């Protein structure tokens, strides 16, 4: 059980990155067949990527530079408008708010997920009885369907009947309208998202900790460094590359979060929890009238932001893999 946890694919929500060995490093003579045989085995994947990745993406770019109404959509004669949709999105008063909400959502989620994940990883590094089992149980929030987690949190944060408010009231506090007040809606979804992200951070950081040789700590211990000092002078600096990977990957995943926010608050009230991803989703599918052109414009801006950070991640990962 202990080894299984360090080696699980460590994604946050729905994706995973795996360090793939560089084929150039070892290129033996062709074992089986020609390069055409190799291509034949990869052909279904290549066809799949073209049809189910490239095509939808091209279609979404196409949507964003046309003015698609429902009718034009079915008939396929939408008017070409160039960057008008992008201009409209960027000049919309909602853009600033959505960008701010996205930044707050991502920043607070990441900071707390990382801090709590790291604290737990350090804690679980001491092997105590049942630590493997408990660490395994920590994965539960990550494996649950998001609709399940989101609806549980919705009910826990319910104003009148939620457990959170009854605890607050029991300690003499005031009832908080978590999901229905514009002041707390964003905080509520951030809390739920932090809970969801802790397992991912715990798993990656824990496996990073496993790679720090134990004798470094023993040497520090002999020099009289306490646990706190050891953490700041050994653990944290040596964990920096892993931390960078965790945070960047987390950032890319958190940017695209839709489910949890949509189910808990639908971006409301009064757009107080509308992020870019939610904005895009709502324009496209949140109302009876799909308005795909502006939605695609917002979505494509989101892709650009995600890919910028994604390339930072890939660079760091590659540097790590070659070092």
């Amino acid at each position: 059980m202990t080894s299984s946890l360090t080696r699980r694919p460590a994604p946050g929500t729905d994706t995973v990155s795996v360090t793939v060995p560089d084929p150039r490093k070892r290129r033996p003579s062709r074992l089986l067949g020609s390069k055409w045989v190799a291509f034949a085995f990869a052909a279904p994947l290549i066809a799949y990527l073209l049809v189910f990745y490239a095509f939808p993406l091209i279609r979404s770019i196409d949507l964003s530079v046309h003015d698609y109404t429902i009718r034009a959509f079915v008939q396929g004669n939408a008017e070409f408008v160039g960057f008008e949709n992008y201009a409209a999105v960027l000049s919309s008063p909602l853009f600033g708010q959505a960008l701010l909400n996205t930044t707050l959502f991502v920043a607070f989620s990441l900071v707390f997920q990382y801090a709590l994940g790291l604290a737990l990883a350090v804690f679980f590094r001491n092997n105590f009885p049942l630590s493997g089992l408990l660490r395994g149980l920590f994965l539960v929030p990550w494996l649950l369907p998001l609709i399940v987690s989101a609806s549980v949190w919705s009910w826990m944060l319910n104003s009148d009947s939620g457990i959170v408010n009854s605890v607050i009231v029991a300690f003499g506090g005031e009832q908080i309208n978590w999901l229905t007040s514009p002041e707390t809606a964003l905080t509520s979804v951030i809390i739920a998202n932090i809970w969801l992200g802790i397992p991912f951070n715990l798993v990656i950081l824990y496996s990073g900790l496993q790679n720090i040789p134990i004798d470094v700590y023993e040497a520090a211990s002999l020099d009289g460094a306490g646990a706190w000092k050891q953490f700041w002078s050994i653990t944290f600096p040596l964990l920096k590359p892993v931390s960078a990977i965790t945070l960047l990957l987390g950032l890319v995943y958190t940017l695209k979060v839709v489910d949890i926010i949509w189910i808990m608050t639908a971006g409301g009230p009064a757009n107080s929890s509308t992020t870019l991803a939610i904005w895009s989703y709502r324009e496209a599918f949140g109302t009876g009238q799909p308005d795909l052109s502006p939605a695609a414009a917002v979505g494509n801006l989101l892709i650009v932001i995600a890919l910028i950070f994604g390339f930072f991640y890939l660079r760091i990962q590659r540097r790590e893999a070659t070092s």
Partner: protein
Amino acid sequence: MTARRSWWKLALGVIFTALMLFPVYWMVNVSLTRTQDLRLSPPNIFPVNPTFEGFEAVMRQQLPNLGTSLLIGLGCVVLTVVIAAPAAYAIALLNLRGGRTLNFILLVAQMIPAVVMAMGFYAIYVRLGLLNSVWGLILADSTIAIPFGVLLFTAFMSGLPRELLQAAKVDGANAWRTFISIVLPMSRNSVLTVSLFAFLWAWSDFIFASTLARNSELRPVTLGIYAYIGNNTTQWNAIMATAVVASIPAAILLVVAQRYVAAGVTAGAVKD
């Protein structure tokens, strides 16, 4: 470490785990609560008068949705393995030209927000008449698992001993025969890992379901729960009971995959 200290840590670990899993406990607790007790203030911390009302509602109303989700999940598993495993074989063992580029594309593909993919699929499906169909959802959901599957299979197959392939070649086996009778059987743990995750992600999917199957007769269970939340906010015990049932695959994966994930995954997000 003295025994005493390690007991302290165990106690602390149990407290942390309990805090972390409280929402899960709460889901089970509410699912067993009687409808008239749902609005109690303060709520019952334990199911004082446990009832299966909620689960009866699941049996009455959600069974077809659970069946749909099962079908979509299984379809997704088959599609993922059939496409990902041969491709990984080509990249890892047949020295596919452009294999590195392909890996890079797969890594980037995972970063694309699902909401954008959903829009693209929607626009395509409207024309093809694939909206509100199980097939359409299987195809869309598989985009979550296939890049992961290829990367995982590639990592695993790269570690297979080359001598085996040499031996197969000496025995006169061609690439296809080697794949079917040597590489796949040896990769069964990673096949299982990929299958489990492909199933779980398809089962859990909300974005594609809520966009591509909005008006479907055959709804996956995630939409079943979503419709519950929208319609009857009084029946939270039924919502939570459905949530409990919808969590079963995750629970199975946690118990089963512990074993196979260990054997199947040779590389994590962090270089070992």
